[in-house]
């Protein structure tokens, strides 16, 4: 997971202690991925172990409240640079619960796949509307880089949700066609039923 790299990237901009790091992360990503502070400290410990960060020594090691302030090391700087220049790998598709659910729904008898799809689509659509509503409250071209960062993260969620809706649409269309073709195939002796054709003719003219 990239929390490690994300924290490293934040530290590159200046030394921070754990709480500060968490607050900054959430500000930049719009609280989309909540971090608990324990996760932050665990990660910082690992980073220190790997020699990528070190407690800042120029200062008294800890501020007045006794927080340990971390700074990035040269190795850490290299790691951050490498992270930014390497594309996110997609070799291992993330485990997707929805895909698994649909795959099972199609194969397990007695489940109404259509309903599954529709319910999911409504839910995703509602989420999409929520994201959009979040966007609506903000100016479309923010000047603050941090605002921009948040906005981009929001867009990523919007596009992901949209992709999911489109994928659901696609599943629905394929399932529907399969369902329409099945009776026709099963009863080949009957005069060719029209539904498939009908679906084809029901087009909206030549709009490109």
């Amino acid at each position, binding site marked *: 997971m990239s929390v490690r790299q994300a924290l490293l990237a934040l530290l590159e901009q200046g030394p921070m202690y754990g709480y500060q790091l968490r607050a900054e992360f959430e500000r930049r990503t719009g609280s989309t991925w909540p971090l608990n502070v324990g996760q932050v400290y665990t990660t910082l410990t690992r980073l220190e172990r790997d020699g990528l960060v070190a407690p800042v020594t120029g200062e008294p090691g800890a501020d007045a409240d006794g927080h340990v302030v971390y700074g990035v090391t040269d190795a850490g700087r290299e790691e951050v640079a490498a992270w930014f220049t390497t594309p996110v790998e997609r070799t291992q598709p993330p485990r997707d619960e929805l895909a698994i659910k649909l795959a099972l729904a199609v194969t397990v008898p007695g489940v109404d796949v259509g309903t599954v799809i529709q319910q999911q689509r409504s839910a995703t659509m509602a989420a999409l509307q929520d994201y959009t509503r979040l966007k609506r409250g903000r100016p479309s071209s923010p000047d603050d880089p941090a605002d921009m960062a948040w906005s981009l993260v929001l867009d990523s969620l919007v596009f992901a949700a949209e992709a999911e809706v489109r994928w659901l649409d696609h599943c629905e269309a394929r399932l529907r066609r399969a369902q329409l073709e099945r009776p026709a195939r099963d009863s080949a002796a009957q005069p060719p039923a029209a539904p498939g054709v009908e679906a084809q003719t029901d087009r*909206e*003219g*030549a*709009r*490109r």
Partner: protein
Amino acid sequence: MIPLHAWRLPLRLARRDALRHRARSILVLVMIALPVLAVTAADVAIHTQRVSGAESVDRRIGTAEALVSVSDGVTDVKQKPDPDDCCPVTDGDGTTPAPTAEQVSSLLDGATLLEVRRGETELRTAKGQTPVEATEVDLSDALTDGLFDLTSGRWPAAPGEVVVNQSVLDLGYRVGGTLDLTAEGAPADPTIVGVAESTTNRTFPSVAGPPGALALDTTGTWEWLVDGGPVSWHTVRQLNAIGATVASRAVITDPPPRSQWPEEVQVETDDGSTLAILALIGVMALIEVVLLAGPAFAVSARRQQRSLALMAATGGTPRQSRRVIVASAIVLGGVAALVGVGLGIGASRVLQPLLQARSDTWFGPFEVPWLQLAGVAAFGLLSAFLAAIVPAYLASRQDVVAVLAGRRGDRPASLRSPLLGLVLLGAGIAGSAAGASQSSGGELAIAVSAIPAVLGMILLVPLVLAGLARVSGRLPLVLRYAVRDADRHRARTVPAVSAVAATVAGVVALGIGLSSDDAENQATYLPSVAPGVGIVSAYEPDVSWAALASVVQRELPHATVTEQRGLPDGDGYAEVFGPSGETLLQSSGGSLGANIMAADGDLPIGLLGVAARDVPRAEAMLAGGGMVAFVSPGTSVSGDTATVVQHSFDPESGEETGSHRVSVPAAFVTLTDPWAGPAALVSTAAARDLGVRPQVVSLAVTGHVSEQQEDDVNQALAAASSDTGLYVERGFRADDATVIAQLVLIALGAVLMLGGTLTATFLALSDARPDLATLSAVGASPRTRRGVAAAYAVVVGGVGAALGAAVGFIPGIAVTWPLTSTNGLDGGPPTGPFLDVPWLMVLGLVVVLPAVTAVVVGLFARSRLPLVARLD
């Protein structure tokens, strides 16, 4: 809603659209402006060339106030304000002497009168003699200023001095030389002292000098130029009352109202048919212009269909859509009309010297008839308006949803318009048939009914296109594409095809009429004498035939000149009747020199219509002192004596002095053809019984005589005696005018066809650009565009020409009835109608011209396919 306000938006859209699509706008401008320009130029030229009464006052009366003419025997005149305007009505006993100068002057408050004598005299020329216009007046008097323009030399100052015009110099005379007048008693050798052009006529020879210089014989008539104060209409009427005709400056320039004119001259002579013909030509021209400009508006409407659909979506009503298209017609038509009128006036001004050089009379001042030009401009505007009406109507009815969804193509053709087309076509045919069966005036009815026929044809064009598109499946790609595209975009194809069709219909109809007329002339041609024979005849009784014969013999040394005798017509005439007093001939004539020819034995040379088997019988009868009486073709008379009645006249009074009836042994010969030849041949003995002595009445010239020789002989004869001439029978010869008219027709048809086809093709190509881009995208070669262009021209030109030819046959054939049938010529049976279809011309129009157009289009189309995206 204020109407003007409602038009503001459409007009703004139209103006911007015209500017955005310059090429198409210019096309429409040219289509409409050209006819306007031509008509304007012609109208201005005609008005300039026509010299109105007021304009010509100076030419006619110089600086005088009036010109008074009197003649013996006239005691009362009813004239229009301008007596030259036509037909003063005179009254008189024929004996009362004309009013004297004193009488005239007294009615003019004692104004000074200057006598003018005008007439014609003859000048000797190198080849013989020629008539010249002659004027005798004191040219030094200021009253004559304006009658002549001195161009070189000086005015005559002494008796015996004259001025001549350039045309006289062209005859071989020169300034300083003497004038050789041929009239008897002419003063010898008047001296030419200057060159003065007549202000009226330009090319006819003209001479002028002081009274007596030319020995003009104006016996019984006098003319005076009047000095003094203006001559009022009242004074004119007073002078009329004593028998004088007056051209008064004051009256001509400011004519009295019609109500003050004498009743006798108030009659209108126009019968309205001229107006009908003009209206007909106007309607035809309007249809043609509308059809030519139609495709441009159709394409313009298509280009705007997206805008119009958007307008509809934002709440525009169909009427507002219509207005947008109509507004573009108003903008373009208005500009075209103004430009056409403006350029027309300019063209006329520029061409004026050129036209003047080809005219025999001097033009009036440059004149622009604004009112008529306003009408011409209105015609241009109207044609644009009419051309836009159908596209506008279609645009207002378009399917907004389909257009917004990006679908193209016209709505399917309705069945109603072709039905209406059939009805109109039927009406046109019926009208033509009615016109053909009418005894007189059928031509106009046929021409008028050509209009519904053409309109009906236009309505049938979509049907034809649809039919073609249906059977086009096996055609090569480019042709198939062109046919289908033409069918899909009827709004622009139909007017283009119709324009071509209307042109071809007109040309075919006129062509059939012309060549049928020619066929009739050929079929009903009546030779005057036997082919190859020349006849010299004279209209003066006392002519020296021997002198004439020597003139002819001198010009034609290898020809044989034979004197022919006949009974002279001078102081009597003879009628010939059959044994029981019946009339023998429907008509006869003096083509051999006299109505009754004299011959003892051999028949006169040049005789026609006598069958070979009748010749011995006729010759025997003549040799035996009898006569030959001709009988109308198709009838026969049996018997052996004819009755001849000789009437004699007093040559002075014209009254019959007596008649003389004799019975003469006769051979009755039935003519094989109607002929304007003699009614009978008499032997000298038979003539003696009638109390008439046969005289020479003509010279027969046999042997080859060329046309050039004929002209030479005629000129030589004119020098010897005024009223003689040689006529050589050469059989039927096609009138040059017919051939020229056919060529002009074909040329005009070709230009209009080419114009219609070209505009439609290039508009179609620009309209089909997206499709062509698709073609190029799938790998069509650059030549394909040329191919498509040529195919389009073939479809438009070919379909139009074929339809037009078919429709043209209706009035064409119909018009041959009134044009070429007669109730019988010279007593012959009824002839005609004659029908001669100029197949070569039809073939040229229907096959050759479209093919040529296609080649031209193919050559000039840009072969590079446009690389534009499919935008609409």
